[in-house]
């Protein structure tokens, strides 16, 4: 439970906004370096660094952002190199742009072929599949030896051309650097868009991703395949640089060099790939001068690099910056930053943010707007009726939900109560698609939800919050709330990469909407704080805002009140009231009986998977059986043992992989 690195700090805002420009400037400088007196040795080193950086950046997309360890970059790199080599040697195609296109195509194909089986199952399998992919490279090359030269390699790769002109010397250098700059611009634009946020959600919580309407499998596959593109490009550049390629250029050791460069530079970073590549390119070069001891020194270098840069150079710089800021060496930290990025980002540890820093958050109910006015602001939430008909779920002989029929209508709060293990959360999971019903139906308006994949239920209009708020680390409140709109107000990937007007419009709207919703819930002041470091009550409100952002047809709130203090509960109550007034459909699972009595229009009581009572709060309050079984207020209260007989049902939502 060590404190983890927080978000890249918004401290030094000028630095943040100027960073792309600075990097571009640096890139241009490198581009013209040959005319500034860069020698042959260094220009070759720069090219090699650029090539390695391209390969590493692809790994960063899948490992750092989408959270999948892929060892196969080497194979994709080899595909690029051999496609170019084959075209140039056997087919006489030397046009480098044509070769790049063909290589990208080849890398994408191999990416799909290895990614589909590898990602279908999640967990270790991608690492394993890509591991095999790398170790069979020499065998496959050998089997195709008439095209690839087998173990002997492919020699005599001609000088590449571009529009008929030969690319040699400085020309080739400029081409490589320009391609690298263009790729990193694409990479950066992709990551600093809603898609980058979606990747982060995907990495930390596949369940949350599905709840947002994201198909986990497809987005991971997409990330992995996008990561294949720079590897393919790098392969072409390498083939033309060295004019000779052989299986030994693509040995398994290279997979580790790439992984090390990624980790050393910081997997979850954009430009870290360049630094990591530079260190891994130049370091071993120096180490070779130790001759007999070079392996030992290289091993020690890896150990030290792993220890020192375990969060990457980017992480090292971040923690250095925050250290400096704390010691007062740097000014310019926005006051809110003291709450945000510095606080411990671990949801499991209750983050005690001190009074001074939290300031307005601790005491204030001040921001609460009069309900009528806000109802106008929230506008019409097009709620739809959620109809559950004779829904049943068996888990290996145990009935967790037993022919339940109920309806939740727009403009009302429908509460589900019952002892632990009575099937409430299972019911929510059936609505969300995490479980498939054994029989019966779940309808939202006219749409049948039963049996849909979670992301499809979400797209049909189901929004949900969780017993333990699911909040990715390293995300600010406004970005987190905006993820609710990822599917409903989608900006395409090409538009994001090319920064088309639709991208600017989309991100401006999402940001404004996120801020508006946070204001509505009275927590606008945390908009720039890291969500994971906020107190539980505030995190729940942020989750409610995230649910609102999706403009869903039904809201499912799972134990929103649990673990909250009385003041937080009051805020939440106001938020739910707002949604109800705006015509939203609200389903509430809650143990706080007084709260339920207060805000629910209709209460359904579950026990051992079956509905034992339904009615208005006053009816439920008068129901003797409910009081006995649920609140235990009668003298004849059952033992827990009897109360929870139906508990074999897996109560909590599907466990998050740790």
């Amino acid at each position, binding site marked *: *439970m*060590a*404190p983890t690195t927080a978000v890249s700090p918004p401290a030094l805002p000028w630095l943040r906004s100027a960073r792309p420009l600075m990097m571009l400037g640096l890139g241009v400088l490198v581009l013209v370096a040959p005319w500034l007196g860069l020698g042959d040795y260094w220009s070759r080193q720069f090219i090699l660094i650029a090539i390695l950086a391209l390969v590493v950046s692809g790994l960063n997309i899948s490992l750092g952002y989408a959270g999948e360890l892929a060892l196969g970059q080497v194979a994709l790199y080899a595909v690029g190199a051999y496609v170019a080599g084959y075209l140039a040697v056997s087919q006489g195609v030397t046009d480098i742009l044509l070769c790049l296109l063909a290589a990208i195509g080849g890398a994408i194909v191999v990416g799909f072929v290895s990614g589909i089986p590898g990602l279908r199952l999640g967990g270790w399998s991608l690492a394993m599949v890509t591991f095999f992919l790398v170790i069979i490279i020499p065998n496959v090359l050998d089997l195709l030896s008439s095209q690839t030269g087998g173990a002997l390699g492919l020699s005599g790769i001609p000088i590449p051309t571009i529009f008929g002109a030969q690319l040699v010397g400085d020309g080739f250098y400029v081409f490589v650097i320009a391609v690298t700059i263009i790729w990193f611009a694409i990479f950066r634009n992709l990551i600093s868009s809603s898609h980058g946020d979606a990747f982060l959600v995907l990495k930390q919580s596949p369940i949350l991703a599905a709840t947002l309407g994201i198909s986990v499998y497809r987005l991971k596959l997409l990330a992995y395949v996008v990561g294949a593109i720079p590897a393919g490009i790098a392969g072409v550049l390498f083939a033309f640089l060295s004019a000779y390629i052989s299986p030994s250029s693509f040995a398994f050791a290279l997979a580790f060099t790439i992984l090390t460069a990624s980790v050393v530079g910081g997997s979850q970073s954009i430009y870290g790939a360049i630094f990591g590549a530079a260190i891994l390119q130049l370091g071993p070069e120096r180490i070779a001068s130790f001759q007999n001891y070079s392996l030992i020194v290289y091993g020690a270098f890896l150990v030290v690099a792993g220890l020192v840069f375990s969060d990457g150079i980017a992480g090292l710089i971040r923690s250095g910056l*925050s*250290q400096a800021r*704390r010691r007062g060496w740097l000014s310019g930290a926005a006051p809110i930053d*003291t709450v945000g990025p*510095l*606080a*411990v980002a671990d949801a*499991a*540890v*209750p*983050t*005690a943010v*001190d*009074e*001074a*820093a*939290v300031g307005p958050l*601790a*005491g204030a109910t001040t921001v609460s707007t009069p309900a009528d006015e806000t109802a106008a602001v929230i506008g019409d939430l097009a709620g739809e009726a959620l109809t559950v008909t004779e829904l049943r779920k068996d888990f290996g002989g145990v009935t967790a939900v037993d022919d339940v029929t109920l309806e939740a209508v727009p403009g009302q709060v429908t509460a589900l109560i*019952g*002892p*632990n*293990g*009575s099937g409430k959360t299972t019911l929510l999971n059936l609505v969300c698609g995490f479980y498939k019903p054994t029989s019966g139906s779940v309808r939202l308006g006219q749409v049948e939800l039963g049996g849909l994949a979670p992301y499809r239920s979400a797209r049909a209009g189901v929004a949900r919050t969780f*017993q*333990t708020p699911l909040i990715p680390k390293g995300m600010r409140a406004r970005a987190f709330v905006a993820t609710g709109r990822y599917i409903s107000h989608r900006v395409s990937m090409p538009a994001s990469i090319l920064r088309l007007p639709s991208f600017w419009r989309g991100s401006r709207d999402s940001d404004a909407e996120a801020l508006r919703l946070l204001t509505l819930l009275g927590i606008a002041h945390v908009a720039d704080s890291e969500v994971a470091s906020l*107190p*539980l009550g505030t995190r729940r409100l942020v989750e409610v805002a995230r649910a609102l952002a999706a403009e869903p047809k039904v809201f499912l709130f799972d*134990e929103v009140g*649990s*673990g*909250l*203090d*009385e*003041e*937080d509960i009051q805020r939440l109550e106001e938020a739910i009231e707002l949604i109800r007034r705006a015509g939203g459909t609200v389903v509430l699972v809650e*143990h706080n*009986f007084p709260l339920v009595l207060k805000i629910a229009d209709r209460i359904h009581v579950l026990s051992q998977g079956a509905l034992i009572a339904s009615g208005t709060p006053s009816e439920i309050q008068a129901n003797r059986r409910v009081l006995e*079984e*649920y*609140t*235990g*207020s009668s003298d004849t*209260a*059952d*033992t*827990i*043992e009897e*109360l*929870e007989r139906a*508990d*074999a*049902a*897996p*109560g*909590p939502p599907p*466990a998050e992989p740790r």
Partner: protein
Amino acid sequence: MLTVDSIAGGYGDIQVLWGVSASVEAGHVTVVLGRNGAGKSSLLNAVAGFLPTVRSGHVRLGDLELGRLTPFERVRAGLAYVQEGKRVFHRRTVEENLLLGGYTVKRPFLRRGQRLQASVDRAYERFPMLADRRKMTAGRLSGGQQQMLAIAQALIPEPTVLMLDEPSAGLAPAVAKEVFAMVENLKREGLAVLLVEQVVDNALAIADDVIVIDAGRVAASGRVADFDDTTMVRDLYLGRSGAGPGESHGRAPGRSGS
């Protein structure tokens, strides 16, 4: 029994506790109240040895100074800690979870030590619903049962001090009542209980002493009986009023900078 003397610390550079003192006697319950994020769980973490940075202060169990001990040595010394969120081992069976609770009782190799088995059997007597589910993996238990299992697990080594972090969170009212009844029983058996709770009334009903923490400092503390009205405690913990009776420390002044 357990004495915490002006402990200060936090997570690396982030200080969370600013000199918190607390104590609990055998056969007593001390309840720690406070808003979310006030530092309640951090206090328990500090006692259990999980707070990454402890800058100053002492934790004593009887005559034993715990400060330099690792978390597992503290367990061996008689401290039991039931963490927030029903943290049992979901992939292990109920029986295995209970056996794990006795890890310090019978460390050597074979699982079936007689003494350990006797402790496990006692746990089954105390929590009969666990006995019916020995072979079930803990992940399949309901929330209430997991909480009971977590407590049963912590009791196996026969500790002298039990710390509970929000044991009633996420439990149906009837089950929460059972949990509180259980705590009361344990207190009667002579255990010292340090309890962090969010549900003020239930907690005060079984507590002997109360400590209110606000922003990492003790806002008030004293015997429950001395607070003649629970609303006063509530106001205090929500930071609405000045001080309470007893040996009140007054409200913590706002801290500038961080």
